[in-house]
């Protein structure tokens, strides 16, 4: 492009101001990219069981209340139910509280049918099922702690009065849930005194169209029992779990919007100053034949470049930082696999271009509409 040199030179004519503005944009877009990455993380957690045709049955009172084993037989007998598995969230940690990750006691014999989207090799599955203290560990968690199959690990108690002592017997792969540990329900029950109660039943359903009906049927079945239930799809269950933290999505969206609004105002001030300083030059350009739309295009390109470079530094900075940084460890297991993905980068870059257009639109339009004689007369 013939005008690229003019645009580039104008962009850096006041280097300090341009660099400070870019840094400001970079900091804000880093912040926005991080918030979006956290939201994305929550969203992927909520969607973890999408398409798996699973229902989760918990106590109607709260997740902390347990349900009797006896419910399971009745649920399994409902037409359309393929199988069920008991699953108990343990909430233990490894060595230090900062090494927090999801760990569950599960019916090992039901694992392959109910959790069929968790990919396990036949050898690993057999070894896991054969050892009453065996553990099946997510691939990313293995990497995080540099564990190997055969390693012995001890988890520290937080909720239940026992410290699970486990031997890693295999690994599983899952597109989202890659940082969990599963171990046998039998070991858990024996360790806490075999109370015959569990937190959740996970129900594999044959036809996804039947999920709503089966869900209602389960809750109706136990409505008048001592242990009434509430049944969710897996997605609803995860979303409920996330909602315990409050409306994080609304909060993050509001904070991001405020940050973007702030950056629009700050960029508009910088761009207005920049355009104002060049009134005479713009008048000269127009005098020698630069048409109004060409002046507009040149100035808008310059302003959009400013915000796009700032946005790219911030959002790609967050992208590369989270690639090389264990957010799970830093957040005590709260944020596993945090990453600024392509979709978030695209949102950030589109927003950065939008900021350039909105903030630079008015000064660029005003400059391009400038009458040559007014511009030449102006003393800035």
């Amino acid at each position, binding site marked *: 492009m013939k005008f690229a040199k003019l645009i580039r030179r104008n962009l850096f004519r006041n280097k300090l101001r341009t660099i400070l503005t870019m840094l400001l944009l970079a900091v804000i877009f880093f912040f926005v990219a991080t918030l979006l990455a956290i939201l994305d993380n929550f969203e992927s957690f909520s969607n973890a069981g999408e398409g798996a045709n699973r229902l989760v049955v918990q106590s109607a009172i709260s997740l902390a209340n347990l349900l009797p084993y006896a419910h399971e037989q009745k649920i399994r007998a409902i037409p359309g139910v393929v199988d069920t598995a008991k699953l108990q969230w343990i909430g233990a940690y490894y060595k230090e509280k900062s090494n927090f990750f999801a760990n569950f006691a599960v019916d090992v014999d039901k694992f392959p049918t109910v959790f069929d989207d968790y990919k396990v090799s036949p050898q690993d599955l057999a070894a896991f099922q054969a050892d009453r203290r065996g553990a099946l560990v997510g691939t990313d968690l293995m990497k995080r702690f540099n564990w190997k199959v055969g390693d012995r690990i001890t988890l520290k108690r937080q909720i239940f009065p026992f410290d699970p002592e486990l031997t890693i017997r295999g690994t599983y792969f899952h597109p989202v849930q890659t940082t969990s540990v599963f171990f046998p329900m039998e070991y858990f029950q024996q360790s806490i005194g075999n109370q015959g109660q569990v937190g959740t039943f996970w129900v594999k359903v044959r036809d996804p169209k039947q999920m709503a009906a089966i869900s209602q049927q389960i809750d109706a079945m136990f409505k008048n029992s001592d242990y009434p239930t509430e049944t969710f799809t897996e997605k609803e269950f995860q979303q409920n779990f996330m909602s315990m933290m409050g409306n994080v999505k609304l909060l993050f969206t509001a904070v991001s919007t405020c940050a973007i609004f702030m950056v629009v105002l700050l960029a508009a001030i910088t761009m207005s100053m920049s355009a104002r300083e060049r009134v005479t030059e713009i008048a*000269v350009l127009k005098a*020698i*034949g630069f048409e*109004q739309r060409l002046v507009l295009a040149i100035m808008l390109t310059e302003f959009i470049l400013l915000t796009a470079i700032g946005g790219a530094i911030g959002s790609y900075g967050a992208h590369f930082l989270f690639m090389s940084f264990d957010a799970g460890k830093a957040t005590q297991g709260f944020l596993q696999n945090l990453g600024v993905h392509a979709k978030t980068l695209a949102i950030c870059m589109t927003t950065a271009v939008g900021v350039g257009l909105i903030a630079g639109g008015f000064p660029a339009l005003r400059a391009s509409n400038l009458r040559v004689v007014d511009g030449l007369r102006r003393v800035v």
Partner: protein
Amino acid sequence: MDTLVDINNVRKVYKRDAFEVPVLNGVTLAVPRGDFLALMGPSGSGKTTLLNLMAGIDRPTGGSIFVDGKEISRFSETQLASWRSRHVGFIFQMYNLIPVLNAFENVELPLLLTKLSKKERREHVQAALGIVGLGDRSLHYPRQLSGGQEQRVAIARAIVTDPTLLVADEPTGDLDAKNAQETLDLLQRLNHDFAKTIVMVTHDPKAAQHAKRTLHLEKGLLVEGRYGAETAANA
């Protein structure tokens, strides 16, 4: 003589808030091709306004302006911009070079609006800088040049497209005597050797002496000149 600029009964009124300020009150003037005309007059007499009108950067309130047979007073803004890029070279009092571009790039600016190749542009720019005697300063930025050199770069920018008309608004107003003399000599050379038609606004009678003729404006009217009355009457 072949008339290049033909101005007929041109009026210009500026609006300042609720007030109307008449600047030109029916000026009629003909500028022959190859002329070097100096416009003189006190501040506010309308000489810069008249220059701006014939250069197509302002529009008259009434009357008509023909340049090279085309009535530019009827052109749209876009048509005027395109016309200016091909037919008018501007020389300003404060040089008005783009500070972020070097001498070569400043002179090249008007050529960016043409379809010339990069090589052709380079040849034109080198030729223009050669004419003004700054071939060896092409990579210097305006801040690295003296006032006189800056004005010569501005003149090179004005002539690089080989325009029909050169307009100069107080071209020596910001220069010392030596540089002013050099600039005027250069303008005279452009008129004499390259047959450029030049219209120059000036306060300085010594500068006006370099022109072929001088016209005086007062209160928006042409009043006298060496050949002014004759030209006004002939127009």
